[in-house]
């Protein structure tokens, strides 16, 4: 397919501007010379029709939850109800400016205030900041608050952050970004945190531990109360990576489990679109003892019932994002919470867990299941037996494209060889799940009978197998004339 740059014809344009009806000023008189561009920006010159066709063509090559089943583990690719889009586009939410005076945006402030209350209740936290732009940003914000908490207590020497070897890759990366020292501990044989390993790692230097619960194997950390006790009694804090919140919303809270800080992904668990349809939103909640360190401003309520932005927060770590976060995403997630209600959210979590267990049970005879236990919202298969026949997990993932499915997450978590991490979410019906199971079983059969077919997949997509190695070693990152 031609790039839009390749369709460019000098002088062609998609717009016709009206004649200027104000006095014209030379650009040199408005912008200092050192900021003026000297060469043309090299933008494509096409007509409106060409642009429309080009981007429509591109969009048809995309795969999203609106085109098909997308069981991408750890990403919670649930359906995004369209009513949330309508609500986020209401004039009162879109035709406002962040610099407007507070009395003219009371509705927006009220929504932010109530979202803080909703998420606090759902996580068992005291307050929530809606500023972080997505999950990893929430992690960084949470860790910065943990650091500020220790420093404020005169314990700034606490720099050690413990993560299990099954953690999301963002956890160690965020710890590094926050200037903390990482200690990775091995998971136990049952796929959960090993308490003995934890006890060995915990000492007077520990700032905290980052845990996902349920973890990336989809297993609930059933020792969480004891884990919290071990870390707290050593003076450390517990950070909950809430990426897997879809398994527990409305049933249990990170607060009850003993966590001090948690981030949520509104674009995963709360049905706001993500991937190409983003942006994300990664609110971070804390218990009372960490609340003074939350980013500023927070929305507060006055005696007369009006809302305002409170900047007077002397211990705050400051602002972590421009203005008040990705407001549109917050609106969509708020609409989702109100639509579902507490029972609806609980039902969603239960159905997500039921769907995952159904798929796991039906597929475990055809693929290896290294941790054969009741799972939460996702589970991890291994393509180990297929690998012995010369077909690896990447091949299986590519073959699924031929069947019309987005592949699961592969080669993660790192503690499972040839991993296939499957998260169906609650929004898929039984027929879809059955068809996916059928496809997976058929592929397992192909590995035995016609392995070449799987090894060379995909066959029916617009392009065949891409050279991922070459793309990584010799990336071409931008178009040049």
């Amino acid at each position, binding site marked *: 397919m031609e790039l839009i740059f390749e369709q460019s014809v000098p002088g062609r344009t998609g717009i016709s501007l009206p004649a200027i009806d104000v006095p014209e000023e030379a650009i040199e008189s408005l912008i200092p010379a050192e900021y003026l561009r000297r060469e043309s920006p090299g933008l494509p010159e096409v007509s409106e029709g060409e642009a429309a066709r080009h981007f429509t063509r591109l969009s048809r090559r995309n795969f999203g939850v609106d085109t098909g089943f997308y069981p991408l583990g750890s990403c919670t690719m649930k359906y995004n109800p369209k009513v949330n889009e309508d609500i986020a586009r209401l004039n009162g939410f879109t035709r406002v400016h962040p610099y407007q005076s507070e009395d003219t945006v009371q509705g927006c402030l009220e929504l932010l205030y109530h979202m803080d209350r909703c998420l606090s209740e759902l996580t068992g936290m005291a307050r929530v900041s809606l500023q972080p732009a997505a999950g990893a940003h929430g992690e960084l914000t949470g860790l910065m608050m943990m650091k500020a908490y220790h420093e404020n207590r005169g314990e700034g020497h606490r720099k050690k952050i413990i993560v299990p070897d099954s953690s999301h890759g963002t956890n160690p990366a965020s710890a590094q970004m926050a200037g903390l020292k990482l200690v990775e501990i091995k998971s136990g044989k049952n796929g959960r945190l090993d308490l003995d390993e934890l006890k060995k790692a915990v000492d007077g230097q520990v700032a905290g531990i980052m845990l996902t619960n349920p973890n990336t194997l989809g297993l609930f950390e059933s020792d969480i109360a004891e884990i919290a006790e071990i870390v707290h009694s050593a003076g450390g804090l517990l950070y909950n990576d809430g990426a897997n919140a879809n398994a527990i919303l409305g049933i249990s809270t990170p607060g009850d489990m003993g966590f001090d800080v948690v981030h949520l992904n509104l674009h995963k668990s709360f049905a706001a679109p993500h991937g190409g349809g983003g942006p994300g939103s990664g609110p971070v909640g804390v218990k009372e003892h960490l609340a003074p360190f939350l980013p500023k401003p927070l929305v507060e309520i006055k005696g007369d019932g009006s809302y305002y932005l409170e900047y007077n927060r002397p211990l705050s770590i400051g602002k972590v994002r421009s203005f008040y976060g990705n407001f549109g995403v917050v609106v969509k997630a708020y609409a989702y919470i109100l639509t579902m209600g507490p029972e609806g959210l609980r039902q969603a979590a239960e159905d997500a867990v039921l769907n995952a267990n159904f798929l796991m049970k039906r597929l475990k005879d055809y693929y290896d299941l290294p941790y054969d236990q009741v799972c939460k919202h996702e589970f991890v298969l291994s393509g180990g037996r297929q690998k012995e026949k010369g077909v690896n997990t990447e091949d299986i993932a590519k073959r699924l494209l031929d069947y019309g499915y987005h592949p699961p997450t592969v*080669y993660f978590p790192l503690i499972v060889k040839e991993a296939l991490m499957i998260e169906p979410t609650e929004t898929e019906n039984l027929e879809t799940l059955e068809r996916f199971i059928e496809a997976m079983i058929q592929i397992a059969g192909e590995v035995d009978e016609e392995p070449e077919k799987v090894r060379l997949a995909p066959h029916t997509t617009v392009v065949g197998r891409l050279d991922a190695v070459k793309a*990584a070693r010799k990336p071409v990152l931008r178009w040049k004339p």
Partner: protein
Amino acid sequence: MNIPADLKYSSEHEWVRAEGDEASIGITDHAQQALGDIVFVELPEVGDEVGAGEAFAVVESVKAASDVYAPVSGKIIKVNERLFASPELVNSDPYGSWFVVVLMSDPGELATLLSAEDYNKFCEEE
């Protein structure tokens, strides 16, 4: 799987070739196979100190990024800059593609590492 008899091995799949106080360190054939096509290698700087068991380098394949752990403690005296331009050498010649040379602070640590025979057994069990 290729496991040369004259090297020492770690349970994290690194190999060590000791000559006097100097130890060259790389990753094993088993490790490069498990990682798949390696697209990037990040190395420490000459003069850095590493402790046994600490991560000192990163290998990135199409599948994942993984830490490489130092089997012995000491000071980095050489890094293999050829791997920056040609990370694929780790796949094609894992035992020729050393990552770093360490001036060992405690050569006694070598005794804690696995022999070729033990490492072979370890891989089979894993």
